[in-house]
């Protein structure tokens, strides 16, 4: 086996704890389903046939391996480290989310579940969930905050075309964390025949480990591709982090290569000094237990979840995946943040220099590349995860850039 037998010293213990983080703080109703999922997870890790099937669909359906692209122009412009882009945006459905959706759909099939429930922020996980539901014959319900529906309308349209029921979530901040709550409640109600296709490396055990294991394909490929291109390991890995699925996907296979620096980039929103206007958990977050797991959350002193903000719906979430909280504590992964403005600048630069349209989430990672590359020598290598492409962001980007022609087009269209 190539993927699922891989382990590191940074993995969870048998009850899903990464140091003090993680665990399974779920209401009793969900614990049997989580136990069943854990049993299946343990079983597939030893099942070469499952891995073979996973690889088969990754290749023929998702279109893997995704390219590792040398960003020559950006490298030249920044004048330091060689920059490689792992382009997950070229996957079927346009982002890395399809990796764990495919894995979980195959698992749900094993568990004989008939229906998939998913939450979504940017809509990339929702589209990927609706896609695997269509392909493997599941009913599918996707919860999405009303605020995010406004921000990412194209993805709602495609989810519906794929046959999913998209339910707007009107509670709380009407964003990703409220969609997770709504999805958990649906699961509580329909746990007998439904699988909760949770969309990141967060939530109660085994979700953080399960999704990481499905996403590790990203780093697994990068390792081989870079070996072929450069004959060595990267010096630095950079990825944006909300729950952590794309970042852990890139980092995981390198965790024990101590020479490889890793930086997770959080959403700095309007600036991390502005309370409630960013989603940077390591700027003011504290330890808490919410949505079934223990980690660093942005919350008030009473333990109520705080408001968050980011230009990218996919990073607009108050908790960080528990393995990342642990990796930060032990000093293995560094964290920084990029503001909305920095992300937009990085977006523009990448579009113009490389002809690649990175999702606004991924643009946060590129913003960090812009800060790091000039400080590093020309023989060092940075790999940045372009976790998704920007098609879904057309409305936000057009508005942020004040594109008058687009505005006129939208107004005419609406008549």
């Amino acid at each position: 086996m190539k993927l699922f037998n891989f382990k590191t010293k940074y993995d969870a213990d048998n009850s899903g704890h990464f140091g003090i983080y993680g665990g399974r703080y779920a209401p009793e109703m969900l614990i049997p389903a989580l136990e069943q999922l854990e049993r299946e997870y343990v079983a597939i890790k030893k099942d070469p046939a499952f891995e073979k099937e996973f690889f088969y669909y990754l290749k023929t359906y998702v279109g893997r391996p995704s390219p590792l692209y040398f960003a020559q122009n950006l490298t030249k412009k920044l004048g330091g480290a060689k920059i490689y882009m792992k382009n997950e945006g070229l996957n079927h459905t346009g982002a890395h989310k399809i990796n764990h959706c495919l894995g979980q759909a195959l698992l749900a099939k094993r568990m004989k579940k008939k229906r998939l429930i998913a939450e979504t922020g940017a809509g990339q996980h929702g589209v990927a969930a609706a896609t695997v539901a269509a392909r493997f014959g599941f009913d599918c319900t996707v919860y999405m905050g009303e605020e995010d529906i406004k921000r990412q309308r194209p993805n709602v349209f495609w989810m519906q075309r794929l046959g999913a029921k998209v339910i707007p979530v009107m509670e709380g901040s009407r964003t990703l964390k409220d969609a997770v709550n709504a999805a958990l409640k649906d699961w509580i109600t329909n746990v007998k025949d439904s699988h909760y296709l949770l969309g990141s490396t967060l939530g109660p055990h085994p979700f953080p480990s399960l999704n990481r294991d499905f996403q590790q394909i990203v780093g697994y490929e990068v390792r081989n591709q870079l070996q072929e291109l450069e004959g060595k390991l990267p010096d630095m890995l950079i990825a944006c982090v909300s729950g952590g699925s794309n970042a852990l996907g890139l980092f995981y296979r390198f965790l024990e290569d101590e020479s490889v620096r890793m930086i997770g980039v959080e959403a700095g929103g309007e600036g991390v000094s502005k309370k409630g206007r960013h989603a940077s958990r390591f700027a003011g977050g504290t330890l808490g237990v919410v949505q079934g797991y223990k980690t660093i959350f942005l919350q008030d002193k009473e333990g109520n979840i705080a408001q968050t903000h980011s230009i990218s719906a996919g990073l607009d979430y108050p908790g960080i995946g528990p393995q990342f909280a642990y990796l930060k504590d032990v000093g293995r992964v560094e964290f920084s943040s990029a503001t909305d403005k920095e992300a937009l600048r990085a977006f523009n630069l990448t579009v113009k220099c490389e002809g690649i349209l990175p999702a606004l989430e991924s643009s946060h990672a590129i913003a960090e590349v812009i800060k790091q590359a000039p400080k590093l020598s020309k023989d060092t290598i940075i790999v940045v995860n372009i976790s998704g492409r920007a098609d879904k962001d057309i409305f936000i980007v057009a508005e942020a850039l004040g594109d008058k022609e687009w505005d006129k087009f939208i107004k005419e269209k609406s008549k």
Partner: protein
Amino acid sequence: MKLMTHVVVGYPTIASTIQIVKAMEQAGADYVELQIPFSDPIADGPTIMKACDIALKNGITVRDCLKVMKTLSNKVSIPLFFMGYYNTVFHFGVDAFCKQAKAAGAYGLIIPDMPPDEEEHEHFIKACRTHHLAQIRVITPASSNERMKLNAQVADEFVYCVSHYGVTGSNADFKKSLKPYIARVKKYFNLPIALGFGISKPSHIRAIKDIVDIAIVGSAIIKIIDKYKNPKTRIREIKKFIQDILI
């Protein structure tokens, strides 16, 4: 059959919470749950969730809840429980919360997202023991026999059985499968059986009264609070509801 009713502290105001709980006792409630409002109550349906939201918007804090408990425990003689989510307790400090809850007169705690499996990390059940707070465990139709056994080892007073697959306030069917479920619970718990989630009218009580010992009513009373804005009418309607349901 006994009755446990429920309020969200500070919904709609602290003064009304105090009046409502007093009225509940007068109308015949045997226990009352005082829910500490929380931003992300994952076991609650829309009715209680909205009440939590409004209470939080009114600025209700854990210290306010402790004060309400203190006031009420001096005014009523029935046992009062704190119901809440683990993050609230965790943030306050597990031992400090249990100590102060006891000092305020709480009889016990109902924290549905703190499973015994995490006790080794949290020492929550231990803190309940230290401060003599009853530890109410929540069991569901989905619970395996192993889960029942595990929860029974640490349960006090009564076992809180969730009536059906769903969140608080969702429609329940008390005819099918309730008997075998409760029979299974009785195999593991040597405690009175309380049943909640979706109990909202006298016919529900009639359907369950020979099967369980305590009925739990939450969302149905919040709905009365929502419906009647005049404080006097509200109290009258709550009392009438409880008396009707107990006949």
